[in-house]
Each structure stands twice: as C-alpha cells, then as structure tokens.
C-alpha cells in the first residue's frame, strides 16, 4: 500500500550572491525551477547579497514568474538593492514581478 498523501513544503527561499551575469544563469535557473517543481506555495528570492543582474538573469526571473503564476506559487524578490531596483524599473519588471526594496538604506 502506498501513502498518497504528500506534504509539500509551504515555502522555499533562494539567496544568490555577488554578480549575476549570464554565466550565473544555468545554476540560478536550476535552483529556481527545482524549487517550483517541488510545488511550494511561496518562493522567495533574497537579493540582499546581489550587486548586479544582467538581462539574461532578468529573463530567468521572468520565466520563473510565468511558471509560478501557472502553478499559483507566490514568487517574490526581496531585499533588492537600490541600483538593481533602478534596473527593474527601467525595464518595467517592477510591474510584473513582486519585488521589495532593501531594508538597509543606501544613503
């Protein structure tokens, strides 16, 4: 007899660090989609230690957000540094991704 009841993790968090350029995409993509495949209800991407994101990483976030929307996972980018938030705003990603700025003031 098999137990059909599965307990899914309610939340997961990913905290990349440093400079996220195109070379970081394969690892980041795998981590994001592994977490989404686990079926979490809430996925947080903590960007507090990220100093730079390139367009290929933004594209990766966008694809993850699409998948999250399809499966009703709440995906959120938190602790976004001011310079990265400027980048998000420049390309309108602040309107399609749930992102909240860093709680540490840069001024």
């Amino acid at each position, binding site marked *: 007899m098999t137990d059909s009841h599965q307990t899914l993790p309610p939340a997961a968090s990913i905290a990349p660090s440093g*400079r996220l*350029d*195109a*070379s970081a995409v394969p690892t980041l993509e795998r981590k994001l989609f592994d977490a989404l495949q686990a079926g979490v209800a809430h996925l947080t991407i903590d960007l507090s230690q990220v100093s*730079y994101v*390139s*367009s*290929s990483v*933004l*594209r990766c976030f*966008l*694809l993850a*957000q*699409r998948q999250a*929307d399809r499966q009703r996972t709440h995906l959120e980018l938190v602790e976004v540094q001011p*310079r990265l938030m400027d*980048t998000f705003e*420049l*390309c*309108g990603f602040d309107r*399609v991704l749930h992102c909240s700025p860093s709680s540490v003031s840069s001024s």
Partner: protein
Amino acid sequence: MTSTQHEICVTSELANLANIGSFVSERARLSGMSEKQVFHVQMAVDEACTNAMVHAYQGDPEGEVRVCCYLEGNDFVVEVVDQGQVFDASNVPEPDLGRPLEERDIGGLGLFFMRKLMDSVVFVAPHEGGNQVIMRKHVGERLS
C-alpha cells in the same frame, strides 16, 4: 582629443564577463564618472559582450572578445569587437515593456539596456568580419 586606449582581450567564455566588468568599471571610474554612471557603463558593456559570446560565437568558448576604452573629449567610449558571426542588431525588435507578463517576448532586453544606458550605440560590420559595437557616454551627470 582622444586619450590613451586601454584594452582587455579575453576568450568568449561567459566566465570572463566578470573580468571585463571589473576592467571597464575601473576605467570608467578613473575617467571621472559617478558610481551610477559606472554601473550603467558596466551593464551596457556586459550586455554587448554577452551578445558577442552567445550570439556571434554561438556559445563557442574559443573565440576572442576585445574591449577597448578611451576618452574622446567629454565622452567615455567603449568598443567591443569580436570575430564571430555577423550580428544584425536592426533585426532585433525592441521589447514591448508594457505588455502583460504572459504576452511578453523575452528577447531584446540586452540591446534595450545598451541603448537606454548609453548616450550612443553604433553597430559596425568590419570588412574583415565579425562585429564592432561602439558605445559612448558623456562623463558627468545628464538628466538620466
């Protein structure tokens, strides 16, 4: 008047993007740019080099990417040169940033950033083949 040129030449491995970023940031900083401008230049150059590695060389890590920086008058100029397949930037449509998430085309963002963050971006097809991108940014704050 044009200042001394500074150059970095790397193979077309994505792992070299960080070295290029450090090199360009240092040169931009030394030219007198603000940290915000340095960040913008670094991002535009990163996108241009990523295009060279991913599109011109199609992921072949054995290619050569050359990045050259200099001051021309009040402009900080960066040239990115590769010997890969000719890349026609005019064929890349601008991303429609107002569309809903599900309808968005996910391409074209790199070129969008290059054009948005620099004052001028010119694509040249050298006679000897490959691609040359010449980007300029005025040293000193403008409206952006």
